[in-house]
């Protein structure tokens, strides 16, 4: 090594990273040995401080998130136009179709029949879906979420123009749909049939959001 190691390299060494060349330099350099001793002392002092308790803070955050206007929005990216949202929704639908096609064309592995799941996965010697299937499902779900996020942003921006009573009804049904989706996804784990039902749920959710936006566009 020519010259002293960079501060970043010395920091890495103080964190315990194996940097043979840096270590060799430090061993023969008084200035770097001193610097390393300081870095280690600082780390020791900082790391002994207790983590603060934060559990009690969540209630206040949750309460404020329930207030109107607290939904996530693309406030720095500018307002996305509905045609982008529709394009994303179409992309999500295409991804979901691809996942469905993949499932239908999967070679039989002695596992359950996806079209007629009459026995539970636990009762067979099925060794679980392959990585490709799960990746396709993940991709489809991700695309649906992305589409839903964009449409939710559109909805949040357009909500004030809706009839307050109607907006409230939409809020409630969308929140219910989101909660159901979250619950279904949580229990689905790697069960392919359950994951497909989650995708159906997403499709319905995205369609609902599109319906609201189209109604809003038709009656600005």
């Amino acid at each position: 090594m020519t010259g002293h190691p960079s501060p970043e390299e010395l920091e890495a060494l103080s964190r315990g990273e194996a940097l043979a060349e840096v270590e060799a330099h430090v061993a023969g350099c008084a200035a770097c040995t001193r610097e390393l001793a300081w870095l280690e002392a600082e780390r020791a002092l900082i790391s002994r401080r207790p983590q603060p308790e934060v559990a009690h803070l969540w209630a206040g955050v949750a309460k404020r998130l329930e207030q109107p206007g607290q939904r996530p929005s693309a406030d720095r990216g500018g307002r996305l136009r509905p045609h982008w949202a529709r394009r994303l929704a179409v992309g999500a639908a295409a991804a979901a179709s691809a996942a469905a096609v993949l499932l239908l064309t999967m070679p039989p592995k002695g596992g359950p029949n996806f079209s007629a799941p009459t026995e539970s996965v636990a009762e067979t010697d099925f060794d679980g879906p392959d990585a490709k299937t799960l990746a396709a499902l993940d991709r489809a779900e991700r695309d649906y979420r992305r589409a839903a996020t964009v449409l939710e942003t559109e909805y949040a921006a357009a909500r004030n123009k809706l009839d307050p009573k109607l907006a409230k009804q939409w809020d409630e049904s969308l929140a219910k749909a989101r909660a159901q989706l979250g619950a279904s996804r949580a229990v689905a784990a790697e069960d392919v049939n359950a994951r497909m039902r989650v995708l159906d749920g997403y499709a319905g959710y995205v369609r609902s959001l599109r319906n609201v936006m189209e109604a809003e566009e038709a009656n600005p």
Partner: protein
Amino acid sequence: MASAAERSGSDRELLLRAQAGDGEAFRVIFDREAPGVRRFLGDLLRDHAAADEATQETFVRAHLRLTTLKQPEKLQGWLFGIARMVFLEQLRRKRRDGPMPEDAEPMHVDRAPTPEAALLSGEADQVLDAALAALSEERRAALLMRLDHGLAYGEIAAAMGWTLQKVKNEIHRARLQLRERLAWYLEGAA
């Protein structure tokens, strides 16, 4: 223990779920990140009630802007950027009541501490606290992002709105200032 790749995949999944309106996912993000954010704000504000309030404000703002975050691996730095803005607003209010102390030019400390000395007693915490308090808020913020929370220099630059060079300079000066204050204690204890 989850590998970095697994953790990164799970972070992405979590963020996407939160962005899609999954409250449970946002709660997980809160549980994971709030201790660091609260400690950071506590170190800057040096007032428990104000730090609690600022932590809540940080997460409410984060939730509102969640869809603007595209890279899950930058979540921590992004949250610290919001926390810093919340802190600055409080700071501006405080400054109306009186000027804040400027940073002194630090001196080099030519002696090295012994690692054992840093851990000798609870007094060390108070000494560190006083040494941190002597730094200006901005310099302290940058140093703690690096030293306490392990943010990369680039992430600190984004959170602070500084150039990379300024981040490096400020952290270097902060370290020297800190050491100047700590030297007497660490050497005395050794």
